């Protein structure tokens, strides 16, 4: 890599690795003579310019090599994770959990329990890939095997993509600009992914928006829909955690089904029976520990169908109210 950087004209390097433009911008070097090799172009500069950054021309090629290597590594496909295993530790009183939970790609598991019962603690254990070294003593395996120390640092903060009601878009960009920016940070994405995310988000959202809509103008439901579609197609994280998403303006069950179809491991932290019963199984948390793991039963699935009717009813009533209609009876 470094040899190539030293010998090729800068213009040819940039053709091959367009990201070099970003690197040069970071060092205020956008005006380098691109017909020359990097080193020669640097030597032609006023030395004071690089001195501002505490470096000399000879430092730049190796820094650029580092930059490109890190970029390739970061953008590279995330190691596909086919399963996560939680090996039980202990609850707040020190009682053993005596449980092993294995969750596969494409499965949806809900996490239920009172506020403060320890749901966040379980998530934190998964996020840091605990190896019996957190207060719960739990161990997390990926694809059935232990995770090395280095992998933990590498994966920390990237293994779980999170979606919660508290999250908002803060960038002042259009939907298209935003998706392009996110795609730009992931070089391995296929053509057409931006359009795909946009279409899916619109399918999930109650009300439509366009690629030219500004992120800050999106409604809560539209934002959530865009975040979910984006997580499904663009995020590298193999696990998606959905934390209590409200049922307004976004089809949550459809959203969860999309994530599962994209082979994500989907965890849904919720108090909502529709979401809890819509999952393949649920982890019940009590007193800081995993109290039970329940596979959704046939009876529960039938109850779910009833609940969905009620939900649909509420949804329609809401629609009527919004359209300025009168409510005459609770039976449509």
């Amino acid at each position, binding site marked *: 890599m470094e040899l190539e950087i030293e010998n090729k004209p800068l213009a040819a390097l940039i053709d091959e690795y367009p990201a070099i433009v970003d690197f040069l911008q970071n060092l205020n070097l956008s005006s380098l003579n691109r017909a020359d090799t990097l080193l020669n172009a640097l030597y032609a500069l006023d030395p004071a310019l690089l001195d501002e950054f505490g470096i000399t021309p000879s430092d730049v090629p190796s820094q650029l090599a580092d930059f490109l290597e890190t970029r390739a590594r970061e953008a590279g496909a995330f190691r596909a994770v086919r399963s996560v295993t939680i090996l039980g530790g202990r609850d707040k009183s020190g009682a053993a959990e005596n449980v092993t939970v294995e969750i596969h790609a494409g499965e949806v598991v809900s996490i239920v329990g009172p506020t403060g019962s320890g749901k966040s603690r379980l998530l934190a254990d998964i996020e840091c890939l605990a190896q019996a070294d957190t207060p719960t003593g739990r161990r997390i395996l990926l694809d059935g095997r232990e995770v090395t120390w280095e992998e933990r640092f590498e994966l920390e903060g990237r293994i779980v993509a999170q979606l919660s009601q508290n999250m908002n878009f803060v960038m002042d960009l259009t939907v298209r600009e935003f998706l392009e920016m996110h795609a730009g940070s992931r070089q391995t994405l296929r053509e057409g992914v931006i359009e795909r995310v946009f279409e899916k988000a619109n399918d999930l959202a109650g009300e439509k928006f366009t690629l030219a809509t500004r992120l800050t103008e999106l409604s809560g439901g539209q934002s959530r829909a865009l*975040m979910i579609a984006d997580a499904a197609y663009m995020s590298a994280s193999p696990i998606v955690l959905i934390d209590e998403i409200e049922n307004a303006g976004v089809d949550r069950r459809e959203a969860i089904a999309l994530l599962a179809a994209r082979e994500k491991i989907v965890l849904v932290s919720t108090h909502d029976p529709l979401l809890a019963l819509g999952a393949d199984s649920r982890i019940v948390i009590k007193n800081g520990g995993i109290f039970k793991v329940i596979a959704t039963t046939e009876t529960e699935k039938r109850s779910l169908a009833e609940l969905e009717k009620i939900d649909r009813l509420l949804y329609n009533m809401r629609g009527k109210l919004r359209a300025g209609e009168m409510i005459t009876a609770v039976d449509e």
Partner: protein
Amino acid sequence: MKMITVAGPPSSGKTSVILRIAEGLGLRVGVVKFDCLTSFDKARYEDAGIPVEVGLSGKFCPDHFFVNNVEECHRWGLRNELDVLITESAGLCNRCSPHITGVPGVCVVDCLSGVHTPRKIGPMLKLADVVVVTKGDIVSQAEREVFGWSVRQVNSKARIFFINGITGQGAFMLTKTVADAPDIDALTDRRLRFTTPAAACSYCTGETRIGEYYQMGMMRKLQFSEE
């Protein structure tokens, strides 16, 4: 005694991150907080039972003030029999970098500050061993990913941790990193990773009037594009 330097823009969450580290470490942690005019964080440390000293740079360049005092801070830590000394300073001109060779350097930035911020911050972030990104819990997953990417563009080697300074979520591996930090017996003869801003001019000595006539010493003039 272990030592780490923590730096970051004002209100990025440095104090909260340090409190979370101290909580998780279970060691005797002490903090020297460097600030310019005022500091409101002393009470937060005291409430947590953490020994704290505050250094206000006042009319002096904060970076120069830091390097002039950091050796004494280290000695203060030894006198107080700390296990871990943490210095906290704001990167007030976006150029300041209090990181010292051989002493783990942490830079704290927050997701709300804009996606290009990591590229504007300079040596404080570029030369850090660890970058902590805060306030990620209130922005979208995609923005967190883009922000992390933006940090990577500037610093290809640092460990990046996303931490919720309020709940401490994500702080576990950072705490581990601090626990693994080397012991620092003395700072004498160690080097800053980056030079401090240079200034020895008439304005350093109290000049306030505007005009070339009053400008003496080391000066730098803006280059306009039409020149």
